[in-house]
């Protein structure tokens, strides 16, 4: 009726209730980064294991709203097993999907079920929630140890 069901799709609610790769024990991570959205208090830390340019493991911890939690959870699922180059392509596509007026350039095949996140576009105040985890992932891949912020 009001875009709310499109924003809070079942798959997003599911990832919010049961975030994947969340608070899991990881032994050999070699890239990590922390990020927050000071406006609403969302904050996550990501830990990546990158071997020979391939992301072999990701885990995350922290707190956030349903959108930031689900987006980060879905991100970890899709990125495990991908090369860092592939991860960058996915990041660029998701960024375009969430922020561009017309997302003609978006390669849907790269995104798969992540396209569900496009419902966020109707809610400009929430785009930062959906992109938070992705920005932290970028920072971690580049091995920036500093804290990133979506503000």
């Amino acid at each position, binding site marked *: 009726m009001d875009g*709310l069901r499109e924003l*809070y799709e079942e798959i997003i*609610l599911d990832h919010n209730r049961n975030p994947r790769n969340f608070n899991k024990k990881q032994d050999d991570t070699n890239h990590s980064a922390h990020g927050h959205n000071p406006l609403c*208090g969302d904050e996550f830390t990501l830990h990546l294991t990158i071997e020979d340019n391939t992301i072999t493991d990701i885990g995350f911890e922290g707190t956030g709203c*349903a959108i930031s939690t689900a987006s980060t959870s879905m991100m970890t699922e899709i990125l495990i097993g991908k090369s860092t180059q592939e991860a960058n392509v996915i990041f660029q596509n998701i960024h375009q999907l969430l922020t561009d007026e017309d997302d003609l350039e978006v390669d849907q095949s790269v995104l798969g079920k992540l396209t569900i996140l496009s419902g966020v576009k109707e809610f400009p105040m929430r785009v930062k929630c959906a992109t938070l985890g992705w920005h932290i992932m970028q920072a971690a891949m580049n091995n920036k140890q500093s804290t990133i912020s979506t503000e």
Partner: protein
Amino acid sequence: MNSNLALKTNDNIETKYFDVQQVRKDFPALDQRVYDIPLVYLDNAATTQKPQCVIDLISHFYAHSNSNVHRGVHKLSERATNSYEGVRTKLKTFINAKQDNEIIFVRSATEAINLVASSYGKKYIKEGDEIIISQMEHHANIVPWQILCRQSGAILKVIPINHAGELKIEEFDKLLSPKTKLVAITHISNALGTINPIKEIIEKSHANNTPVLIDGAQASPHTQIDVQQLDCDFYTFSSHKMYGPSGVGILYGKEAILEDMPPYQGGGDMILQVTFEETQYNKLPYKFEAGTPNIEGVIGLGGAIDYLNKIGLENIKNYEHDLLTYATDALLDQKDIKIIGTAKNKTAVISFQVEGIHPHDMGTILDKQGVAIRAGHHCAMPTMRFFQVPATTRASFSFYNTLDDADRLIDAIIHAKEIFK
């Protein structure tokens, strides 16, 4: 779902103190639809809507009297100056100050606190001194003191709160010492709604020879303030939270203290004579009002004070208290809602959490149903940390809100729960 039907039917509170429906007609912004649904505005602790009389005063000023204050010899400047200074007198009466020159116009309540921290602080706060604030302060009553402490070597002490969100006064008693050189405390918490026992705090501080600043940003629209009866040394508040325009804050200070304080900013209006060697500062209150002020904002605030006086702060307080009771009962009927801030003595601010729904998601879902609330940390991160929550959803009521507004809030929350089921 109307849990407190008595309030709604037997004893119609919406006409008991004043006619709320009539009052609503004075606020054009309330009469609109968002997403094609009538707006329910419950973000009054962030800012209040403006009555038509305030809006009219601002446009009338620009259409008829626009000119600078305190300097022109011409008719328009005389008119502007009289209107501007007239509001100072109104404010003096509104908070029962002794005289006009104890009312300083600044640009926000935040700036009023910064003025005291910067001017009073520089002169009187030294290394090893202590400043007492509380766990429930807005960042505006934390950060200026932190900066001062860093510059001076003074130490910030914090009065803890209990799980209802009330000050632990016995801890305050322990913190007070000969080292305490200032106490800065909020009158009413913006995040919790708690009304603090400021009279008691002021008495105890004075017995310890410590001056007190009261942050009244959340108090001035809801309760009668009498600075002489309170005997506070400073009282700060804000126009836009009391139905006036934004961009105007008020610092009340006792004349003798203000006289002894150095200027805050230099510039026009705050001087008597300037040479390159020396400047002679103007008398109070102008010593603290450098630069052209927000003239139309101050004049608009005058209209807001007249409006508040017309309804009567006692009526406002009583009505809002009934609204608080009604909305709190209705919220608690929803089993999975937890209210953060349950002080015995509180204003109509309700911070809450619904199990399994993050406040930011709640904010979006309520907004789509036309209900405007605040979701976040309310510029009170240490308070949130105490309650171990990153954020809350906050509904804050005004005298123009109705029982139906509270019902709409509950309905919207129920819808959110359905989505998140």
